[in-house]
């Protein structure tokens, strides 16, 4: 029982408790804030695993981007102080039952399976290594998916503008 173990379990508890609160609270703004803390917990787990780059990406994109976008859309579409409508108790019970059965089945499979780590030399995921791999066109490089994602982002950007554009009233 050392400090690293304690930190891992604290991060795990933060992530899971905030996740549960985020899907069960009836105030939508609080749901967004709990989601924020859950995502920060996941970023902490990435830091704990020594994957600094993906942790930074997680904080920048999710915490700084997506959650802010969600909060903005809550402000635009909800009246202040409104609570979400109550769900039928039957639906809640059946969803919880289905989710619990799925979770139990998954964990049963995971614990019965034994994983064998490969014996490759450890490559540390530093930013320099990631950058070299991402822009390499040789075997094992990721230049093509990188370009495809950039096209996808451009398409999403234009699509968002077109969808959210208010159609101009006819002036003639």
């Amino acid at each position: 029982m050392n400090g690293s173990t304690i930190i891992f379990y604290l991060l795990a508890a933060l992530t899971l408790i905030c996740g549960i609160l985020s899907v069960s609270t009836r105030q939508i703004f609080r749901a967004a804030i709990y989601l924020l803390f859950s995502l920060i917990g996941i970023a902490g787990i990435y830091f704990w695993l020594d994957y600094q780059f993906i942790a930074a990406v997680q904080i920048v994109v999710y915490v700084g981007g997506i959650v802010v976008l969600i909060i903005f859309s809550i402000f635009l579409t909800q009246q202040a102080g409104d609570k979400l409508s109550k769900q039928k108790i039957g639906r809640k019970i059946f969803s919880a039952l289905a989710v619990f059965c799925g979770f139990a089945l998954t964990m049963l499979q995971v614990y019965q399976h034994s994983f064998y780590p490969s014996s490759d030399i450890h490559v540390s995921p530093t930013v320099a290594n990631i950058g070299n791999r991402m822009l390499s066109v040789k075997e094992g490089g990721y230049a093509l998916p990188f370009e495809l994602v950039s096209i996808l982002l451009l398409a999403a950007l234009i699509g968002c503008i077109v969808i959210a554009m208010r159609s101009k009233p006819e002036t003639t």
Partner: protein
Amino acid sequence: MTEPGLYQILFISAALFFIGVYGFLTRRNLITMLMSVELILNSVNLNFIAFNKYLWPGRMDGLFFAVFIVAIAAAEAAVAIAIIINLYRSHKSIDVKNAEELKY
């Protein structure tokens, strides 16, 4: 408490995935459903990173999958919120109960 390893991270990831599924099944508001989808995507990312670290430390494929999933999730969230705002303009509500023109 045992030393955390692959199994503990897989436990967190599976739990987070099913929390997201529960939210997706019980919520009827589009923004909260989108939040549940974000939780599901994050659990998948956590899985990729854990497998990369513990099973294939000599490669970085899991890390790249996670990076690309983050980029696609950001695009997906932006498009979804544009659609939600457009729906709010035409229906004055973002409840899935009220958007059922295509149902029958």
